[in-house]
């Protein structure tokens, strides 16, 4: 596309940098580039960048990269000389939702947290509009169920998103809880739905939407108590897995890091840990055969269940209930076992 003040204005390269190249530019004319915006651009600053002479041409090299799909107006001598649109690569969608946790079929009414795992790094800024809870019976979105986080909670590589249900509606006694009620209702199934408009890190839609259905059970308000777990001790001298069954589903994210095993020498037992189905169990397959003698399943007291109750405290403590008192925890909690 060309204007009167320059014979040719086009996307190009200046060295290794993307640029807008102006050929045949009349001498002494200023060049300014602006993105086309939804609002009137009167008095708006020009795009940051520098003009580089390249032979007979002048190149505008931006300080910040051009954005795919964005149109730019190039003004020469104060008059619009060209409008160029940055092409948007048409790449097929390939990213998908790998898993939605909890994987249990039923969650407590006071469910606090959901994890979404994606197959590739994702873009921030889409969670509020592309993740929702949906009433299974009516297919209507459950407005206000999810905490409208100012900052989305991603893992460092943006493949796992943590979604919190609104704690103001879960914590007892708050006006929000009394006025709006729990986000979930016992006996009324719901879906966690991720629609395909969620963008991956390359700006592509998801290959398909994903959802997981849950039944809603009773509230869970007890502290997580490793003393209630069932430990199936493996046979000594073998590499049989250690199996631990819980009294309730535990938080998938925390479960994966809060349990480990130490051997008779007090050193960690290396191996492959894995949460079991529905996060109701955990197993450790050792790298070496089990040594004889006493072992310990070591529990980090921050380990929580699906309702945010941890080993050290309940999510919202009823001050009148002695059983709700925080557990005095010094470092870790351990369950002893001995290979058979």
């Amino acid at each position, binding site marked *: 596309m060309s204007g009167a003040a320059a014979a040719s204005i086009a996307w190009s390269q200046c060295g290794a940098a993307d640029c807008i190249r102006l050929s045949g530019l009349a001498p002494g004319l200023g060049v300014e580039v602006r993105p086309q915006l939804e609002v009137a651009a009167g008095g708006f*600053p020009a795009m940051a960048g520098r003009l580089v002479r390249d032979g007979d041409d002048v190149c505008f090299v931006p300080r910040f990269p051009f954005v795919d799909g964005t149109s730019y107006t190039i003004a020469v001598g104060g008059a619009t000389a060209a409008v160029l649109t940055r092409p948007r690569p048409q790449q097929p969608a390939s990213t998908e939702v790998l898993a939605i946790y909890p994987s249990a079929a039923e969650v407590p009414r006071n469910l606090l947290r959901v994890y979404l795992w994606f197959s590739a790094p994702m873009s921030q800024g889409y969670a509020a509009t592309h993740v929702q809870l949906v009433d299974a019976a009516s297919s209507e979105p459950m407005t206000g169920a999810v905490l409208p986080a100012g900052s989305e909670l991603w893992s460092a590589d943006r493949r*796992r998103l943590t979604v919190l249900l609104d704690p103001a509606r879960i914590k007892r006694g708050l006006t929000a809880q009394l006025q709006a009620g729990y986000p979930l209702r016992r006996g009324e199934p719901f879906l966690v739905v991720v629609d395909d408009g969620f963008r991956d890190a390359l700006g592509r839609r998801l290959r398909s939407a994903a959802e997981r259905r849950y039944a809603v059970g009773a509230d869970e308000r007890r502290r997580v108590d490793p003393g209630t777990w069932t430990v199936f001790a493996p046979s000594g001298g073998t590499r049989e897995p250690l199996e631990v069954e819980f009294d309730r589903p535990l938080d998938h994210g925390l479960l994966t890091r809060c349990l480990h095993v130490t051997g008779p020498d007090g050193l960690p037992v290396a191996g492959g840990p894995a949460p079991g189905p529905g996060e109701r169990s955990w197993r450790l397959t050792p790298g070496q055969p089990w040594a004889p003698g006493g072992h310990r399943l070591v529990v980090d007291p921050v380990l929580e269940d699906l309702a945010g109750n941890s080993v050290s405290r309940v999510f*919202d*403590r009823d001050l009148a209930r002695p059983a709700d008192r925080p557990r005095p925890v010094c470092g870790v909690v351990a369950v002893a076992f001995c290979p058979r």
Partner: protein
Amino acid sequence: MSEYGLRPGSADVQSAGPITFGPAGILFLADNGSATVFAVDVADPGRSAGPEPFDLADVDARIGSYLGCAASDVDIRDMAVHPVSHSVYLSVQRGHGDAGQAVLVRIGVPDGAVTDVPLGQVPVAQTAIGDAPGEDDQRQDVTLPSGDQGEEVTYGGRTIRILRRPIRTSTVTDMAYVDGDPGTLLVAGLSNEEFSSRLRRIPFPFGADVTGNSLEIFHVSHGKWETAAPIRTFVPYDHGASILASYTCTPVVHFPLAGLAAGSKVVGRTVAELGSMNQPLDMVSFVDEGEEYLLVANSSHGLIRIACRDIDGQAPLTTPREPVGVPRETKDLQGITRLANLNGGYVLALQVNGDGRRHLRSLKTASL
């Protein structure tokens, strides 16, 4: 800046987070990508400014024009005002995904000129956030990086490059600096795993270890239920002796800052609730005719003004019914997402209109 431990270097911010000014024009920037707080000498070029108001329409579109992107690609994550020049600093994330980058934007006062603040080859210091993934957290996501990031590993005779990254992260929700000797940077955060209420006190100049100096701030709802929930936003007042904090679950809680031992359990006093379907967004303190006030921006109601003396006189809430708690005035000022002191006579607000356009607007403190 060497007296504050700043040395030439780069603040390589991956994900724009909260910002706040410290001593001598040093700006603290939280990077929610690397769980790091940077202290940067922003070398503000402005002169000492006066008491005039400052307004700027379509601030996001202006920034987009300068950064070469649509207004929808400009995510303004926090705002701070330089204490001398009153230049407005905005923590901006430009774009999304792999194309996203953190930019520190400066808006000149009074001319409204938009520039970006260099973060490379500047005086800088940094500290890791205390509850970032521990060394004993073995869980790592393994991905295939682009370029020369990561490390080389060999599987079955084939060598590939992989990148290991922790799964657990901590997102800074708010920061504030309290002057002293040494000064203290207060940092509130939100874990992507456990539900906790940790407020870190980081001495400045930064030292080696900040992990032990954190507080768990519990709060009690109506005398019956006690929770440790993440702090969404907070503001020190009374020369840093007190903190007013608002939580993701919306109670507004007071607690003293002075004299709190590290690692101790602190139970704050709930003095108000923001109500249902409402989220705290930002707070600021200001003084008018010798009286200190706090402003609370929130997602559903107008701007809330609270007198500090009323907080001190407010008994803990015992009845879950609104309106209760500390006396407050709700101003007919909707859509305010960020607040900062402009010059004593005015508070600067970032306000989003019903059509989604964002403006900077000065609010006269005497009229609030």
